[in-house]
C-alpha cells in the first residue's frame, strides 16, 4: 500500500493555499505535516481526501485516485465537532454507519474504542457533559470507528492533558504497529519528532522542507550541546566560544560548530574538577529546523 500526493495546487481567488505539494508514504507509519497557521495543512488534507478538488495535481492510494467512496480513510479535523446534545454511543454508531458499517459492528467498535480510551462510562451521556479532552477522544473514535487504513489527524494532541496525551500516544503506537498509514498535522514539534519518520514543512502553501526526519537532522550535523551540571560553567563555556542556546532549570543547551568544540569543552570541565551529570552532543531539534526554515521564508 502507498499514498502518493503529486504536485497539488489549490488556489482561492488570488491566494494560493497549496503550491505544488508532493510527498509519498510507501510504508506504514506516521507522517508529519507541519506548518504555521494558514500554511495550507487543512486545505492539503481536504484536497487529498477529495473534499476539495485541487486546481491541479493528484492524490492516489495504491495507484487509484482517492475519493470518499474509493478508500476507507479516517479524518479528525482540527476544529472539533460532535453533536453536543446527542449521546456519545449513539453518535458514534451514526458516524460508523455513515462509513458503511452495520449498526451492530459500529456499536461493537465504538464500545471497543470507548474502553481503550477510558471513556466507556460516558457512552450514554450527551457529549456536552464530557470534558473537552474527553470530547476530543469521542471525535478521535469517530475517526477510527470504521478501522480505516489511512488516517489523517489534524492537531490530535491539542487540548489534551498529559494523562490523556499519553493514552493517545499509546493508541498511535498501536495503530502504527497495526500497519496503518497516519498523516498527522501538529504544532507540537516534540510529538512529531517522537513519532514521525517522514515529514513535510509548509509555509504559505509552499513546501520548505520534506523527507526523512533522521536524514534531515543528520544533514545538519551535531550542532547542539546539552550540559547538566550543578556548578556555574558559564565562564568555561565562554572560553570555548559556546553560544548559549537555552537555559533550562537543570541543564544548559549551547550551540556548537562541531564535535571537537564540545570535546575541548568537556576536557576543560574535567580539568577544572567539574563532572557534569549530563553531556549530550546532538543534532538540532525539529523546532529549531522549523523556525530556521519557516523564518527564512517569512
Amino acid at each position, binding site marked *: 500500500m502507498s499514498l502518493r500526493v503529486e504536485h497539488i495546487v489549490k488556489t482561492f481567488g488570488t491566494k494560493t493555499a497549496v503550491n505544488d505539494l508532493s510527498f509519498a508514504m510507501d510504508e506504514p507509519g506516521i507522517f508529519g505535516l507541519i506548518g504555521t497557521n494558514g500554511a495550507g495543512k487543512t486545505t492539503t488534507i*481536504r484536497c487529498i*481526501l477529495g*473534499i*476539495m*478538488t485541487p*486546481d491541479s495535481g493528484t492524490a492516489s492510494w495504491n495507484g487509484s485516485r482517492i475519493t*470518499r467512496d474509493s478508500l476507507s*480513510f479516517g*479524518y*479528525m*479535523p482540527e*476544529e*472539533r*465537532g*460532535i*453533536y*453536543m*446534545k*446527542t449521546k456519545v454511543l449513539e453518535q458514534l454508531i*451514526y*458516524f460508523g*454507519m*455513515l*462509513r*458503511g458499517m452495520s449498526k451492530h459492528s459500529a456499536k461493537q467498535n465504538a464500545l471497543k474504542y470507548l474502553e481503550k480510551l477510558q471513556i466507556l462510562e460516558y457512552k450514554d451521556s450527551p457529549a456536552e457533559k464530557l470534558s473537552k479532552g474527553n470530547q476530543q477522544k469521542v*471525535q478521535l473514535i*469517530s*475517526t477510527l470507528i470504521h478501522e480505516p487504513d489511512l488516517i489523517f489527524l489534524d492537531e490530535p494532541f491539542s487540548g489534551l492533558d498529559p494523562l490523556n496525551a499519553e493514552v493517545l500516544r499509546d493508541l498511535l503506537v498501536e495503530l502504527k504497529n497495526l500497519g496503518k498509514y497516519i498523516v498527522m498535522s501538529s504544532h507540537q514539534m516534540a510529538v512529531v519528532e517522537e513519532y514521525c519518520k517522514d515529514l513535510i514543512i509548509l509555509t504559505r502553501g509552499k513546501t520548505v522542507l520534506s523527507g526523512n526526519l533522521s536524514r534531515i537532522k543528520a544533514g545538519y550535523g551535531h550542532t547542539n550541546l546539552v550540559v547538566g551540571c550543578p556548578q556555574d560553567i558559564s565562564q568555561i563555556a565562554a572560553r570555548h566560544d559556546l553560544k548559549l542556546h537555552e537555559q533550562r532549570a537543570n541543564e544548559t543547551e549551547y550551540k556548537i560548530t562541531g564535535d571537537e568544540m564540545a570535546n575541548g569543552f568537556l576536557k576543560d570541565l574535567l580539568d577544572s574538577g567539574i563532572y557534569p551529570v549530563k553531556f549530550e552532543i546532538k543534532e538540532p531539534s525539529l523546532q529549531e529546523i522549523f523556525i530556521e526554515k519557516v523564518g527564512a521564508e517569512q
Partner: protein
Amino acid sequence: MKQIMTICKFTFLDGLRKKAFIITTAVMLILVVGFCGVTALIGSGSGSDETAQEDTASQPSASEYSSKCYFADDTGKFADSTAALQSAFPTTEFIAATAQEADGYKESVANDGNISIIHIIEQDGKPFIQIITKDFMSGISTSDAADVLTKSYVSDILSDAGMDAATIGLIQEELPYSVETMGDMNLSGFAIGVLLTMLIFFAVYYYGYGVAMSIATEKTSRVMETLIVSAKPSSILIGKCLGMGLLGLLQFGGLIAVSAVSYITLVPGDFTIMGMPLSFSAFTPATAVLILLYFILGYILYAVMNSVCGATVSKIEDINSAMMPVVLISLASFYLGYMTSITASGSSSMLQKLAIYLPFSSPFAVPFKLLNGDIPASDLAISIGLMIVFIIVITAVSIRIYSASVLHYGKKLKLKDAYNSKI
C-alpha cells in the same frame, strides 16, 4: 442511498427528541382539542339560549331582568314606546327617567356594562336618539333600539294621519328574503381551504426553518467537518430534508388525525359556520392525496432552498438574515396563492394561472382550489409537472452551492461565487 437513509433517520430521531418539537406538537394538539371542546360548549350553550327564548313568551319578573335601561324622552313623542322596547328586549328592564336623572346615571353606565341610557332630545325640529352604553360590546343593542324607536315614531305619525293599524303594520313589516349561490363554492370548502392554505404555509415555513437551523448548527459546531468526509454533500442535504420532512409529516399527520377525532367526538352534529353546516364532502381520497402531494412538493422546494441558507452562515445568529430571501419569496408566493384563491371572482385569470403554475405559489394556491372544485385537470397536471422539474433543477443548483458553502467560514460567500467555485 444507504447514507441518505442513515442521515434521514438520524435527523428524524434527533428532531423527534427536541423539546421544541415536543412542546410545539403538544400545544398544537391541545389547541385543536380545545377549539373543538369550545365549539361543543358553545353548541350546547346556544341550545339553552333557544330554550330560554322560547320560555320568555311571558314577561319576566323584575328579578329575572339581566340588565336595565333608563329611558328619558324630552320630546314627549315616545310615551308609548316603552312597551315596544320591552317587547324587543325582554331581558332588559326599561325604567322611565327625566333628562336630569338620565345624566345622573351616566356614571353608573361607565362602571356597569348592564346599564344603558336612551335619551331622546329635540334637534332641528326632529327627535334625536342618544343611546349611552359602557362600550360598544355591552349594554343594549344600539341599532335594534334605534330601529324599534324609529318604527314607533313613524307608526305614531301615520296613526295621527289617520292610517289604520293594519296598514301601518304592513308598511313596517320587513319582507322575508333568502340568498342562494349557484356556484360550486360552499362555506365549508372555503373555510377549510383557507385553513389548509395557512397550515401548509406554516408547515412549509416551520420545517424549512428546521432544515436551515439543523444544517447551520452542524456547520457552526463544526460537526460538518466530520460529516462531510463521511458522506457526500448531496446525501447530507437530501437526507436532512427527508428527515425533517418526515418529522413534519408526522406532526402534520398527527394534527390532522387528532383534529378529525376531536371533530367527530366533540363537535355537535348540527355545528354551523354562518348558518351553514360544516361539510367535508370535498375531501375525496383523490383530493386528499393531491393536497398531500402539494404539501410534500412545497416542503421539498423550500427545504432545499433553506438548506443552502443554513450552509452559508458561519454564525448561528446570522441564520435569519440568510433566510430572508427565501422567507420573502415564500411570503409573496403565499399571498399570491391565498389572494387569488379567496378573491377568485375578482382576480384575473392570468393571475390565477400564474399562482397555479408558479412552483413557489402552487402549494398555497392549488389545495384551496382542489377543495372548492375549480381547477381543471390539465392545469393540475401542468402545475405538478412544473413543480417536479423545478425541484430537480433547484436541488441540483442547491447541492452545488451547498457543497461550496458548507466548509466556508468567515466572510459570507456570494451565491454566484459559491455556484462557480471549484469544490
